């Protein structure tokens, strides 16, 4: 579904991605793990057009999306849930959800999609007219996922959903991701919480220094020697 070929990206003179090649299959959860600063978030930003200078090729469902503007990529059907749950703090929960349905062709399905989101996160329905900035961290994370769902995307890029959340909340968020996936949603997941990520995903890749160090099934990665060394025996 998503094919990335020899993707390079840089901040000024600092090259952050040094030639990444990846293929994401339809219907799978693909995890990208790796240490801080390895280029995981940058990879997502490069896909959705937030990096100003990239080289290589990105192909999504047969369309070449390399170098497109973020809003064009959103139109094509990729949702990008950024890290640290960036909601529009001074807008209400409802307005935030409606912003998710900003793309013209999706406005028709607002009612159904809202129901779908509320079914997944009943907490949001209770707080519908509250300012998003006053929600707890976990609720904000739910809201951003809800916003992404309002876009009716074919692929969700998920950046560190567990960051800064209590373990109980993390479990609940991951439960919802699993549920989404079971209904056929493709998810590209970036996580520092390696254990969680490899539990949920079918396949995964380890990025180090802007390049892919390992790629394979999540099972393989969990038992890989190198990774075991760094992340203390997950196998």
């Amino acid at each position, binding site marked *: 579904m998503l094919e990335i070929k020899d993707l390079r990206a840089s901040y000024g003179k600092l090259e952050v991605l040094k030639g990444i090649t990846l293929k994401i299959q339809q219907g799978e959860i693909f995890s990208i793990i790796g240490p801080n600063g390895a280029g995981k978030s940058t990879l997502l930003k490069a896909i959705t057009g*937030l990096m100003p200078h990239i080289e290589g090729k990105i192909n999504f469902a047969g369309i070449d999306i390399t170098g497109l503007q973020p809003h064009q990529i*959103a139109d094509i059907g990729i949702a990008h849930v*950024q890290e640290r749950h960036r909601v529009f703090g*001074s807008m209400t929960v409802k307005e935030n959800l409606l*912003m998710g349905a*900003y*793309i013209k062709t999706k406005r028709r399905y607002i009612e159904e999609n809202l129901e779908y989101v509320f079914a997944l996160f009943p907490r949001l329905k209770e707080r519908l007219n509250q300012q998003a*900035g006053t929600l707890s961290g976990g609720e904000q994370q739910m809201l951003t996922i809800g916003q992404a769902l309002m*876009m009716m995307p074919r692929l969700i890029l998920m950046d560190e959903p567990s960051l800064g959340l209590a373990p109980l909340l993390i479990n609940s968020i991951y439960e919802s991701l699993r549920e989404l996936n079971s209904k056929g949603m493709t998810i590209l997941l970036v996580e520092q919480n390696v254990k969680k990520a490899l539990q949920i995903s079918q396949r995964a890749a380890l990025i180090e220094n802007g390049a892919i160090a390992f790629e394979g099934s999540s099972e393989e990665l969990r038992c890989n020697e190198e990774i075991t060394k760094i992340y203390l025996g997950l196998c």
Partner: protein
Amino acid sequence: MLISIVINGLLIGCIYSLIAVGLTVIFGVMRIINMFHGDAVMLGMYAAYFLHEKYGLSPYVATIVTAPIFLAAGMAIYKILAPIPPKQREMSSLIITLGISFVTATTAMLLWTADYRTVNLSYSQEVFDLLGTRIGYPALISSIFSLLLIGGFYLFMTKTFLGMSIRATAIDPTTASLYGVNVKITSMVTFGIGLVLAGVAGAVLSPIFYMYPFVGSNFVIKAFTIVVLGGMGSVTGALIGGLLLGVSEALASTFLEYSMKDIIAFLIFLGVLIFKPSGLLGGRSRV
């Protein structure tokens, strides 16, 4: 007398608010300090004047004719500002809009002379009685018109996708773009809308104030006071800030020496800056 003074303060406050609303939206979304805003008000006044003199159009109706022109002008000015790198944008935009302000005011003077003008309507001197307060019809209509416009604009900002996208862009342009908002176009439209509001404010002012090519500078500092007072980017903040300023000025000028009136306005402004730097209504771009 007290009631009369408060009512008068509210009436003029509505108009202060209308001038400030456009400014606050432009500032909130683009962080552009638009020094051209006062001149846009001036142009709105002249447009109303000429349409009234030549075609007998009421200044309030004239806004329908002028709105598209202001929208286009705003978008054109944004085109000049857009390519400047974001880091320099705040200062450069200040200078560019001030430069455009000079060009506009001088051109207006060369075209229309420096003479002062006013719009006198057939009902200019008719008076309406409200709770024992005499209010001139133009003042009343202008204030109500302003309130309706601000109300309409509020609905636009909260109930339409375009309005919400403007607010979302003000808060976080990156995130907004990820939901499919074309930030460049939204910013451009926002600048246009801001100028439309300024032009309309000019039309509304024309029957109760006077105009000359350099009149714009009279409004700019006051409008910025309101913008900061209300919270940058906030429509309701601008409304409340304008009304508050109108009433406090009216009260101050009655019970204190008249020249103290402006000091009061600025002291309120400073008080807000000290105790609530984000303005009366908190964070930016709350509507």
